[in-house]
């Protein structure tokens, strides 16, 4: 895509490329189509990993999730030890952010159930309104397909909890192992570099993680960089 290219042409190219990552449509969901009994299967070529934000009530109205219609009543069962990414204490009580492997059971609208492997992030902070600690519902789970190696996007799931500690927001999320650092750029241009936290080798976590407490209720940009300082991805939150 040449910079001199017309914006309309560039848009057309980007949209076609994105659309072509979808190579099949799911069967009609009400009932299986004639001669078909297979469950919904995802394209194994285009989108291999889907981040599914599962926890519903943790952040009250701000954090309610857009996917409740798709994943009706998912249940999350941890199947590994928890890796503590970060922990701390606010005026309202302690908090802890952990990552772990889980099985996520979902039900489609026609009652079919399926269990998928996932990596989940939990923010345990019992004092947050609506918080469900102890993982009856995870905050954010990334669906994984067994046996398929994928680095994922440089910046994956990101979560922002406003007024987490006084007027400071908690921001946390996942990055690929190619990311060596994440910068947070606030609206005024103030930049803070964060350290990436890698899990212990025995857990074989597919992603690394970052956390930050920032004084901002405005737009925040995340910039992921490689070890030699190259920008791998940018994302707004």
């Amino acid at each position, binding site marked *: *895509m040449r*910079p001199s290219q017309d*914006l*309309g042409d*560039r*848009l*057309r*190219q*980007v*949209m*076609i*490329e*994105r*659309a*072509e990552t*979808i*190579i*099949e*449509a*799911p069967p*009609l*969901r*009400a*009932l*299986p*189509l*004639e*001669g078909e009994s297979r469950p919904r299967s995802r394209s194994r070529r*285009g*989108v*291999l*990993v*889907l*981040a*599914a*934000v599962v926890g519903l009530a943790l952040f009250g*109205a*701000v*954090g*309610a*999730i*857009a*996917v409740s*219609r*798709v994943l009706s009543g998912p249940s999350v069962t941890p199947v590994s030890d928890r890796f503590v990414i970060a922990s701390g204490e606010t005026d309202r009580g302690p908090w802890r952010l952990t990552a772990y492997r889980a099985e996520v059971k979902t039900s489609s609208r026609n009652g079919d159930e399926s269990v998928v492997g996932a990596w989940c992030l939990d923010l345990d902070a019992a004092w947050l309104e609506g918080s469900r600690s102890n993982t009856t519902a995870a905050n954010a789970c990334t669906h994984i397909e067994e046996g398929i190696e*994928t*680095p*994922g*996007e*440089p910046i*994956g799931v990101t*979560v*922002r909890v406003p007024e987490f500690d006084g007027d400071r927001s908690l921001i946390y999320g996942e990055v690929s192992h*190619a990311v060596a650092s994440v910068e947070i750029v606030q609206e005024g241009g103030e930049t803070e570099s964060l350290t990436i936290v890698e899990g212990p080798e025995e857990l074989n976590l597919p992603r690394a993680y970052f956390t930050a407490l920032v004084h901002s209720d405005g737009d925040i*940009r995340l910039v992921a960089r490689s070890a030699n300082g190259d920008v*791998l*991805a*940018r*994302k*707004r939150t």
Partner: protein
Amino acid sequence: MRAVERAAVGHDAELTELYERHSLWAVRFAYMLTGEREIAEDVVQDAFLRTFDRLTSMRNRDAFPGYLRMTILNGVKAYFRRRKSEGLSLRRQAILVGPTHAPSAEVEEREHLWQALQRLPYRQRAALVLRYYEDLSEQDAARSLGTTVAGMKALVSRAKARLRTQLREDDR
């Protein structure tokens, strides 16, 4: 038995065939509008159910794709309205398989453009999708969005201006 039930159990070959012929296009189109595949699939399922139910009153079956497109647009609009009213701020993210090495400037630029597109207000994004992805004429795109040709031109113009601004900000 409703039309969609006949299609779903394979009793109505025409409906089954319509689904098979148009569903991939429909999911891709809805994905352009939502940027979220699961939501796109959900909207498309609902759109087919609604359009099948209207099929008996559809005099010209060639109009099916047009009806389906309009129903998808309405479904996506309703979805965003609902999400806004519920104060939803977290988005599902489809993580695409990417290269293990640092993305080239070209890949990065395309990623920025896609993300900037997702941040546009719904009608502006829909206008761009209809014009540049669906390749509809200004008249047809305007009809699909329920506006005039002048209104469509204004939407596209505002959307492109906003995209340019966002891309400049991202480069800073």
